[in-house]
């Protein structure tokens, strides 16, 4: 469309001989090609991403309950759903818990991921291969399989964790019901998320570490830098973009995590493990308050947008010259 005027000017002379018209038509067709090639992507995005997002926004300003779902008509109620959600102390408890959950998980993942990466770098070839195989095995474990494995590890009666703790002298853990208590359910979910996420962080950071020139470490050693100083003054500054990338990916991932929590505890016991995505789903699925659920979803996306924007800016700075 944008190149059409150009193509139109060329055959403007009506008396132009036929050979000229041919390349002109080809030019117009060539100009349309890119748009034909991206058309399926645009159609898919419009129907399966933009439309649901718009639908979500629309529902969040409507009265949309079970009856409206069946009848198909819904009244507009303005921002009443948002007022109700934001005025509910539960929402703020859940938001606070989600932020705390995200910070705790991301912090632990980055800590263990970094330590594992540094360790991999220092290890001998054979040991490194063994540890990397273990990490890849963890990485390849599907979410739901990992979830059932953790349920089995922490079973009260025959769970191996209770047995080990009992054998180590912590006898209060004999037949301890991990999933019946708020704190211990939260702990298991954190352990599960961290266990599953450390491999990605560790292997990515290790990949970054191998690109740092050895001369930098040589120089640091000659200057008498200790291990911590070397990390703080050499490793971290060089890998800062990579650390930022991995951290923001983990923030997004932990924040919107749903399947593990839903399968293990459905947000319980009580509301101990209810984070925003779980909260939105509970409201919509069990209470049939689709309007309120949509409002919570929209607010979730807005909070996440901060992490997204940060990630996008970094991506564009990096890819800038390739565009």
């Amino acid at each position, binding site marked *: 469309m944008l190149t059409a005027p150009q193509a139109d000017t060329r055959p403007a002379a009506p008396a132009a001989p036929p050979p000229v018209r041919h390349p002109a038509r080809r030019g117009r067709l060539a100009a349309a090609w890119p*748009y034909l*090639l991206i058309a399926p992507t645009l159609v898919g995005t419009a129907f*399966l991403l933009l439309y649901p997002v718009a639908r979500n926004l629309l529902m969040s300003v409507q009265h949309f309950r079970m009856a409206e779902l069946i009848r198909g008509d819904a009244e507009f109620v303005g921002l009443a759903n948002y007022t109700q959600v934001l005025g509910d102390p539960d929402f703020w408890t859940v938001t606070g818990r989600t932020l705390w959950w995200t910070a705790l998980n991301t912090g632990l993942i980055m800590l263990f991921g970094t330590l594992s990466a540094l360790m991999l770098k220092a290890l001998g070839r054979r040991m490194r291969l063994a540890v990397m195989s273990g990490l890849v095995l963890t990485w390849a474990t599907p979410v*739901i399989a990992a979830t059932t494995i953790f349920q089995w*590890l922490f079973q009260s009666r025959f769970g191996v964790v209770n047995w080990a703790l009992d054998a180590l002298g912590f006898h209060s853990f004999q037949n301890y019901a991990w999933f019946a208590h708020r704190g211990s359910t939260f702990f298991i979910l954190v352990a599960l998320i961290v266990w599953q996420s450390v491999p990605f962080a560790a292997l990515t950071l290790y990949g970054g570490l191998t690109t740092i020139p050895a001369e930098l470490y040589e120089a640091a050693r000659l200057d008498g830098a200790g291990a911590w100083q070397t990390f703080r003054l050499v490793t971290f500054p060089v890998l800062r973009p990579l650390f930022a990338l991995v951290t923001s990916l983990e923030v997004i991932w932990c924040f919107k995590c749903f399947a593990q929590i839903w399968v293990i505890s459905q947000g319980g016991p009580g509301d101990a493990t209810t984070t925003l995505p779980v909260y939105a789903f509970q409201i919509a699925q069990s209470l049939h308050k689709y309007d309120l659920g949509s409002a919570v979803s929209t607010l979730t996306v807005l909070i996440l947008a901060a992490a997204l924007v940060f990630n996008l800016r970094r991506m564009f700075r990096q890819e800038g010259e390739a*565009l």
Partner: protein
Amino acid sequence: MNHPPSRALRRVPLNLAALLVLALSAFPVYWMAITALKPTADIQADTPTFLPLHPTLDHFRTAVHADGFATFWRNSLLVTCGAVLMSLLVALCAAFAVGRLRWRGRRAFILMVFVAQMAPWEALLIPMYVIARDTDMLDSLTMLTLVYFMTTLPFTIVTLRGFLAAVPVELEESAQVDGCSRAGAFRRITLPLLAPGLLSTSLFGFITAWNEFAFANTLIIKNQDARTLPVWLSSFANVFGTDWGATMAASSLFMLPVLLVFLVLQNKVTSGMTAGAVKG
């Protein structure tokens, strides 16, 4: 070389830490496999055994013969392969347009793909449910396939664009000089060179779709025959009660394809990267 013993000694804590990380990462999976192979009496022993002393395939038999296992397996395979093939085809077109052609709106399109890649899909569970209901696609595998297609598409475009950038455009141009059409040059020269990239991206997509739980759990409500393996596995406790041997056998069977795909993928990703590096 002056003090080899002290050097080896200094490496002891490091290697111990490595063994600890190895144990922590591999033990849960090992425990799953070993539980699946133990007879129930050993699973319910007061002192757990850490080796399969009396290996049995009973639990695998229970899992495979469970109601609908074959159906759910087929559903998962259909949905996953359908979504991956669709997104591969659509992404290849888009990657070609972005990587090889110059057009207005290209930057905006790439930006859109990046944003879509980071879309918080879990936040769209509710509207997707309502849309599926409005279009009579609730309980249908088609809807699930479409959703998985869209969730893997942006990632596939970005990765294929990367692989495409590694294939020198001069190769295509010289083929065009030799009389190939633009599309012919792409098909004969670039596509074969892109094969490792296509394979590794589709394997990533395979893993994503194979594992997806939230949408499968929301969009398939009434028609239990349209469930996928992750949903079935998550409700395993309802099916088998406290039969942990069968649960772990089912988890192993669910994990096996992903593990195999992952092993293949490791290889292909490296070869794909090398192909990109070798071009110089």
